[in-house]
């Protein structure tokens, strides 16, 4: 009888120990990370911090770097990764609401972007990020997107007519805008657009400030070119998972962690803007800015209603955030978005 009692005690002790070690190890999950610089890039570096935080919530991520975004997205879609880090442009193909955060002209400052990310990290915001198919586990700033031109005399939209603009071939929104301004669309991808700009194959290209040095786009602006000081959109990197792959609690923790650390990552991308020499910037007249704001809104509405590229809910959210920051904007009374 005593031996049986001991045996039972031993079995209970062993199962407790096994259970404890399983809890310590966490659930293994794979994370595919798109970073143009691979494992040495800022985004992959960020995911190392995310991985460390996730281990405290019971998930042990195995992160794999991808230098080709399309492959990362395809591997995610094929079920090779439980979650993926992609640019918002690519995210839009999976999750229209979250991907529409980078809608053109819709977020006019880093403060506004931070407000949106913080609000979406709250439980109410989190509900908007969960669809039957996909759940967004975090949004990180990738930098304001600027227009780089090889000739700084091209400083108004009418002057873009007929100019060749490198355009990401999967970015339907950008294609619509390029056509809207009467420019000539030159298909490009993230791997070749900077080279096309630098060697003169195109007259203009759009990219965050990090492209200035890292992609050597300073070469393209060095002979009389410049960068228009008007935020076209905000690039973001987002962590997308298949709904159900993670618990709601984990998803909420992950979003909150991203929002809590937003300022840190914001500083990195803002430094990129600050590092661009003053002489390179092309100031846009205040009157022109208002005209462009109206033009961008017109294109956004078309992309929402006709092309179905942008999400209606996200555009409304972004309009509300803009109007909280600047209540005097004309659009605040019109409420078209």
């Amino acid at each position, binding site marked *: 009888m005593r031996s049986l009692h001991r045996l039972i005690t031993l079995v209970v002790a062993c199962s407790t120990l096994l259970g404890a070690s399983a809890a310590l190890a966490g659930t293994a999950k794979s994370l595919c990370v798109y970073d143009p610089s691979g494992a040495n890039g800022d985004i992959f570096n960020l995911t190392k911090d995310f991985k460390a935080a996730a281990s405290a919530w019971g998930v042990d991520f195995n992160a794999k770097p991808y230098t080709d975004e399309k492959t990362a997205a395809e591997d995610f*879609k094929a079920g090779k990764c439980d979650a993926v880090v992609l640019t918002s442009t690519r995210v839009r193909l999976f999750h229209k609401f979250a991907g529409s955060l980078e809608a053109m002209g819709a977020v006019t400052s880093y403060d506004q972007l931070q407000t949106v990310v913080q609000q979406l990290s709250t439980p109410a915001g989190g509900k908007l990020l969960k669809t039957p198919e996909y759940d967004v586990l975090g949004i990180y700033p990738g930098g304001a997107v600027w227009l780089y031109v090889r000739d700084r005399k091209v400083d108004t939209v009418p002057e873009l007519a007929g100019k060749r603009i490198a355009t990401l071939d999967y970015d339907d929104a950008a294609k619509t805008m390029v056509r809207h301004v009467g420019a000539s669309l030159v298909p490009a991808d993230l791997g070749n657009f900077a080279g096309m700009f630098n060697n003169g194959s195109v007259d203009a290209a759009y990219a965050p400030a990090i492209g200035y040095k890292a992609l050597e786009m300073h070469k393209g602006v060095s002979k009389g070119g410049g960068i228009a000081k008007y935020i076209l959109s905000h690039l973001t990197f987002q962590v997308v998972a298949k709904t159900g792959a993670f618990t709601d609690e984990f998803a909420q923790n992950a979003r909150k962690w991203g929002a809590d650390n937003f300022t840190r990552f914001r500083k990195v991308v803002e430094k990129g803007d600050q590092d661009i020499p003053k002489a390179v910037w092309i100031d846009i007249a205040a009157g022109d800015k208002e005209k462009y704001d109206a033009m961008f809104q017109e294109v956004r509405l078309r992309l929402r209603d006709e092309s179905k590229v942008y999400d209606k809910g996200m555009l409304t959210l972004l309009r509300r955030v803009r109007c909280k920051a600047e209540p005097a904007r004309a659009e605040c009374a019109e409420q078209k978005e």
Partner: protein
Amino acid sequence: MRLVNRLCALGALLALGPGCRGFMYGQTGDVTTHFAAEHVTPFVMSTDDAEMACASGLAMGNFTMSFERVTDRPNRAALSALASAASCAEAHAWEAELRSLRALRANQPEEAQDARVEEKRWHAVAARRYGAAWTRMTQAFGTPGGTCPTLETPEDETLYLVGLIAGGQAVTHDRAAEGQAGIALDVPRLAARGSECLDDARWFGVPSALRAAVWLSVPGAAPEGEDPWARLAAAAELGESKGMRLARAIQIESLAAAGRLEDVRAAIKTYAESREKTPTHGAFALLDQNGLLLVQQMSDRIWTRETGHRTPLGALGTFPGVAAPATEDTSLFEGLGGDTPASAP
């Protein structure tokens, strides 16, 4: 012909007898130690690499000090080298302290105990080195307390200030090491008196901060009518306005010692904001960097206690649990359902 050359060389060597070598050593020693005090110290002060300064102190300290066997005691050069070497031991003590905090948090008492022992050992090393730097300062300029020494050059003033700081640090580390180094307890008050010999505005508020910190740590040391906390605050602001923030670091250390933890957080935040706004003063970058390391350690203690890790990069001035997302603004979400998600590519 070769043989003749060899004989000549031998003759020259014999002529250079012990007396002649002693003369040459002495000359070399004078030149080296003067160069160290007059050029190496100001140069190192203008660099912002505290790790390299610490390594220089370790590598060059004994070599420089050994010249006292052949010429005058090189007190000025030794003071600088010893203070730098002490900063290495200080960094080790801080690392061990963080290890101990992590172990406590992880409920690993043996690891925590081991880290505490290591921490105390390094505190003792730091105390001895800072104590030796203080002694060299008193040998070079006289023990503070009487009339002020004649500080002829800016380098003299720098060394005097470093010596005073070393005195204060020696006692702090020795207390943390349970008195293993045997640093005299009157050193802080002497350092406080010595600080009156330096122009507070010229030295970024450090002399008055040092004085006020001593007043706060030694019961009854504050003169009648003096408010040490107000002094510290004024000194910290003065230093921040000029990009040399050691006085703020001293204030934060005093606040932590007094258990004013909310004020510590507020001061670290102010410090971090100043680093964003005001560039480091070029000539005294190392002192500003030493201030940063001290403030960073204070911040790391808070982060480690609460999260198990030190201050994340770029997060100095923020604290765990404080950066919670903004209050939910439901007005932004009213009526938003989103569209049907696009089908995946």
